[in-house]
């Protein structure tokens, strides 16, 4: 999936000469945590986060707060240079950057211009879509040997019963490289025939499991 599919195109940005106070108001009013800073050509020159602004703000414990620090330019506190993404980057690459660099927002830049932002929240939303939990369904987990052809073999059980699969995830089985866990979300309220077929075909189910007793 490309970044352009999930990025936010209505970007709120500031110019470097805007005040910290203005940035603070934007964060509060729009419930956002990051603001890209762009020059007159929409070229990204920095980014400020809610934490940058908090660091710059006077302590709430100070008796005589020096409010005028908030009148300084955002360029004085912005992070620069900025890590950016391209609309055609993959979503998983962005996830990798967030994880490695411990950040939560990337401005998306195309032809040297700011065209969007992608945040941690967009990624989590995508994760929800990937798990299929946003549509009605039942959940089945199958432990399978990690070998070629196993996925279509298991999936055919669902196909034979005419049941739609809304998502498939492949998880590692603890640290055992010999096995994988296949997680299916299927669009039925009655998974019993499928569960029966899977058991009859010799697959081990992680869910529904055998606590407290074998049950379908």
């Amino acid at each position: 999936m490309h970044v352009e599919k999930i990025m936010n195109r209505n970007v709120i940005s500031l110019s470097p000469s805007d005040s910290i106070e203005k940035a603070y108001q934007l964060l509060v009013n729009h419930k956002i945590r990051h603001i890209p800073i762009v020059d007159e050509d929409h070229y990204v020159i920095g980014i400020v986060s809610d934490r940058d602004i908090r660091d710059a703000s006077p302590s709430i414990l100070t008796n005589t707060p020096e409010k005028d620090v908030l009148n300084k330019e955002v360029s004085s506190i912005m992070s620069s240079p900025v890590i950016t993404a391209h609309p055609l980057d993959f979503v998983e690459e962005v996830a990798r950057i967030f994880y490695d660099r411990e950040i939560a927002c990337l401005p998306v830049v195309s032809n040297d211009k700011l065209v969007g932002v992608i945040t941690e929240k967009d990624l989590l939303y995508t994760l929800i879509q990937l798990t299929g939990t946003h549509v009605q369904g039942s959940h089945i987990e199958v432990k399978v040997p990690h070998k070629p052809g196993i996925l279509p073999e298991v999936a055919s059980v669902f196909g034979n019963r005419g049941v739609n699969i809304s998502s498939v995830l492949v998880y590692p089985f603890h640290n055992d490289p010999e096995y994988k866990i296949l997680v299916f979300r299927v669009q039925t309220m009655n998974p019993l025939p499928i569960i029966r077929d899977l058991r009859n075909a010799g697959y081990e189910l992680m869910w529904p499991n055998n606590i407290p007793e074998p049950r379908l």
Partner: protein
Amino acid sequence: MNKDIKFVFDKSLLNYHFHNDHPFNQKRVILTKELLENSGQLAENQIIVPRVASDDEIALVHDPAYIRTVKSANNMSPENLIKYGLGTEDTPVFPNMHEASAQIVGATLTAIEAVLVEGAHGAVNFAGGLHHGFKQKASGFCIYNDAAIAIKYIRKNYDLKVLYVDTDAHHGDGVQLAFYDDPKVCTFSIHETGRYLFPGTGNVNERGIKEGHGFSFNLPIDAFTQDESYLEVYENALREIADFFQPDVIVTQNGADSHFYDPLTHLCGSMAIYERIPEVALEISKTYCNGKWIALGGGGYDIWRVVPRAWSQIWNVMKDEQPLHGDLPITWINNWQKEAPVTLPTTWHDPIEEIPVIPRKKEIEEKNHVTLLNLLKYTKVI
């Protein structure tokens, strides 16, 4: 005690029948009716015959295009049906599907009218409670959402505040969505968490939108939850919600699929929860609603061992303010044992040795308690 209560029944309600291998089986209603009759609990003059719902009434919730599709489902292509959730494994097309579904809606409306027009204290329609029906989509064995239609009907004609309580093991998603923006209808669903079970929704943070925000309550409980934990969280939540909302009438959806015998879900309740659930409903109806209470059916897929006893206890509590104890009538067992694929129970309770032992019981109780506390945050202005 001589309360005026009504049992809506007619053989036509059994026409809601997908096919012989489908888990949704309305034979449950006959089994329940006969169990009550054989127990001397149900008299001829308490049974009322349902009317049929009109298209306009069904359209209180459903799209006209959807109703047209249900009517002509037998002549439509699979591609056209699937858009409306029809012709699937869960809701396959069957002959006269519209008529059978409209009959169930009519039966629920008959129960509503018995209480709100005729002045009965309570009424039951165990053929109803099809809570997964959506505006333009069938799902989860449900075509028309009789519960949602009935509540719209109450809102339109009587301007009463309605508390809808859904104890089916599956989340009451269709009814919740129908009133998600309506502050005059409060929906409360307790169900097995959607992590594994259909439909997957019903998280505690689903609270309603717009004016209806704050009038939708969900209590998702862990798989393998047993009686004590179920009742602790259920009773606490319902009392607080009722006190917060102050309803004028209560409509309960009584799916009977949270029992350890139920094949489709993973909850592990015993008959003890099906004695308390109606007792708490009765208490709420007396405290806030002048006793006005309409009880519907719902899910329930062990039609022999669980559903007839569970639903009969609703009627018993509505009638006598307490459930029955001891042995089931021998006539009922003798009449049905030969047809039943399992050994029928002999007592109203489950024998203690039948109740499964759950290794993670303590953790499950703790988890459910935390969920309860999360829900209760929304019932009070602190």
